[in-house]
């Protein structure tokens, strides 16, 4: 099916200045992604999964400017954690600011450093889960990323690695337009924690492909920085083997546009996938969680917990689907998306979907939006808690279910504190 002319024009404009690498092990995957993208075209507001979120700023030829946020002398999140740190400044790896990448039980490569090789283990990973994740819902920005990503990390884990790998994304240039593509392979029985922190760029497009083999575990915690005007489209594609576990939590504070997609396939039996997010926005803020979880194996558990706090015209979007395939018996699927409106000007748009082809499953989903409970607020104040503190306490209580998805108590507490800080800066 030929694309309509406007879609062709938009794609041509965006890709005109981009170079598709023609050599090296990733070239075939990139060429394939480009041809898929050419067939799909870039998203626009008429596409079913872009009805609530206008993708225009993500698809313009030039990235919209985004002023760099000055966090003052605030200690960056995760700084207190013993980790292997990789720093990227507007998408460019900063070796001097990064740690030594040798660690036992784990191989870490940079996409840019190994791109010219003819052979690399990531050849069997790069773009594979992304390509699979294009059905039944097209994700053109992910294909765009696979074709043109300029950097990324390729991580293969063969042991239970206790030290987390931390990707730090600094944003220093107002007009940076960055595409990072990471491939992670957690081999049988292995374990990895991945931390990501920072806005990365004025416009950021990321793909994280994670293969979690039988009995392996993958934990992911990320924070998307505090820049107000930045735009981001992130994608997680994960496949889970037998008895494996995948857990991802995202903290989003500010950002003009954030589209976080997660496409997870519970491929093996007895696996568990949890995706959670806490997002807080004031004013120019659109935050979109679009999740697609497929239950293929039996006795798998999936949880989606998304909470948003909105004020001053901020917009929250949730599109979450659980697909239970035929034969995926004893599936336990849970999905909740809620938003708390701090005023009457904000908006929450939710589209929860369940599609079930097995008969012995337990699936629940709920979506609500509401205001702070005045009765609870009065109760707290009647005990002497000042209004602002009482509000913060109730907002944090609202976010608690999402934050409790973080297994590491110290990180959870740090994130709670930062949310508390945000609330005290953005309180009424």
């Amino acid at each position, binding site marked *: 099916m030929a694309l309509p002319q406007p879609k062709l024009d938009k794609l041509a404009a965006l890709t005109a200045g981009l170079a598709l690498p023609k050599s090296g092990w990733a070239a075939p995957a990139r060429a394939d992604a480009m041809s898929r993208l050419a067939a799909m075209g870039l998203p626009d507001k008429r596409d079913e999964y872009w009805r609530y979120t206008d993708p225009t700023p993500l698809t313009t030829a030039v990235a919209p400017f985004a002023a760099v946020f000055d966090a003052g002398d605030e200690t960056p999140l995760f700084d207190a954690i013993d980790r292997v740190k990789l720093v990227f400044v507007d998408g460019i790896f900063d070796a001097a600011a990064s740690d030594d990448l040798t660690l036992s039980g784990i191989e870490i490569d940079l996409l840019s450093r190994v791109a010219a090789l003819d052979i690399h283990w990531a050849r069997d990973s790069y773009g594979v889960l992304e390509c699979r994740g294009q059905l039944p819902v097209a994700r053109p920005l992910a294909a765009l990323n696979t074709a043109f990503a300029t950097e990324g990390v390729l991580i293969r884990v063969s042991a239970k690695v206790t030290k987390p790998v931390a990707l730090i994304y600094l944003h220093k240039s107002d007009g940076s337009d960055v595409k990072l593509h990471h491939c992670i392979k957690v081999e049988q029985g292995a374990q990895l924690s991945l931390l990501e922190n920072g806005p990365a760029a004025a416009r950021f497009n990321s793909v994280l492909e994670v293969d979690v083999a039988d009995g392996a575990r993958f934990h992911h915690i990320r924070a998307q920085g505090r820049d107000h005007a930045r735009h981001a489209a992130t994608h997680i594609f994960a496949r889970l083997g037998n008895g494996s576990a995948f857990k991802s939590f995202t903290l989003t504070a500010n950002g003009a546009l954030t589209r976080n997609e997660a496409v997870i396939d519970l491929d093996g039996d007895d696996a568990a996938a949890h995706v959670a997010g806490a997002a807080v926005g004031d004013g120019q803020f659109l935050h979109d969680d679009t999740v697609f979880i497929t239950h293929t194996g039996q006795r798998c558990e999936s949880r989606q917990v998304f909470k948003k706090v909105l004020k001053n015209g901020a917009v929250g979007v949730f599109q979450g689907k659980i697909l239970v395939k035929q034969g995926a018996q004893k599936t336990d699927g849970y999905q909740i998306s809620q938003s708390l409106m701090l005023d009457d000007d904000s908006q929450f748009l939710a589209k929860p979907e369940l599609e079930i082809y097995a008969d012995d499953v337990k699936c629940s989903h709920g979506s609500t939006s509401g205001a702070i409970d005045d009765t*609870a607020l009065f109760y707290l*104040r*009647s*005990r*002497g808690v000042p209004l602002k*503190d009482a509000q913060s306490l109730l907002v944090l*209580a609202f976010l608690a279910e999402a934050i409790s998805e973080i297994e590491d108590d110290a990180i959870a507490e740090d994130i709670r504190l930062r949310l508390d800080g945000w609330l005290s800066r953005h309180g009424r």
Partner: protein
Amino acid sequence: MLNINNLHVKLETEDKQILRGVNLVVGAGEVHAIMGPNGSGKSTLSYVLSGKDGYTVTDGTAKLDGADLLAMEPEDRAAAGLFLAFQYPVEIPGVGNMTFLRTAVNAQRKSRGQAEMSAGEFLKVVREKAKRLSIDADMMKRPVNVGFSGGEKKRNEILQMAMLEPRMCILDETDSGLDVDAMKLVADGVNALRDAGRAFLVITHYQRLLDHIRPDVVHIMAAGRIIKTGGPELAMEVEKNGYADLLAGAV
């Protein structure tokens, strides 16, 4: 200590008058009880005193130690020493009972210019007071009032009162829903706090509680007014005869 004069209150959103001229003076060291038929305005009085939204004061005043209560925010009233044990304690999912108590205690200390209680000290005090009210550690860990039984919620109110050590304590039907033993615990909690610098306003429907907490003065409230004031014998009379005679005599 508490001085209520000709207090008239209506609902904010409706033209419904609820309090029609309440006069009440509670002195330091005193315990006053308020009884009265359902819907007579007892809870409304306690809410208006503690600063709940939704009511409009159309006339009259309410003062705590001479300070105009009605002009203060709820948290400032609490800091000034006012406490209301709610008839229906509120459930707050996601906020741990311990966190809540500590936040409240420290907020009040802060507003009075006192140093915050250390975590260790706080824990020690709270454990001791909770034990006296038969509140177990598990209840302290749970979210505020969530999943608590009716009686547990009421005991939790008294625990808050014991921790905050307010000077003017209003108890709105704290005895309702309590079993005999719990009633005794609650009464002991109140009696432990009784001293010359503190006053209580105990709203109740039953003489039983007043056997344990001996009031100095008993008021009967009806249709938004205090229609009769007397000693403890007034509570006996209500218990025996109901309100019919009192109401008939009040017009």
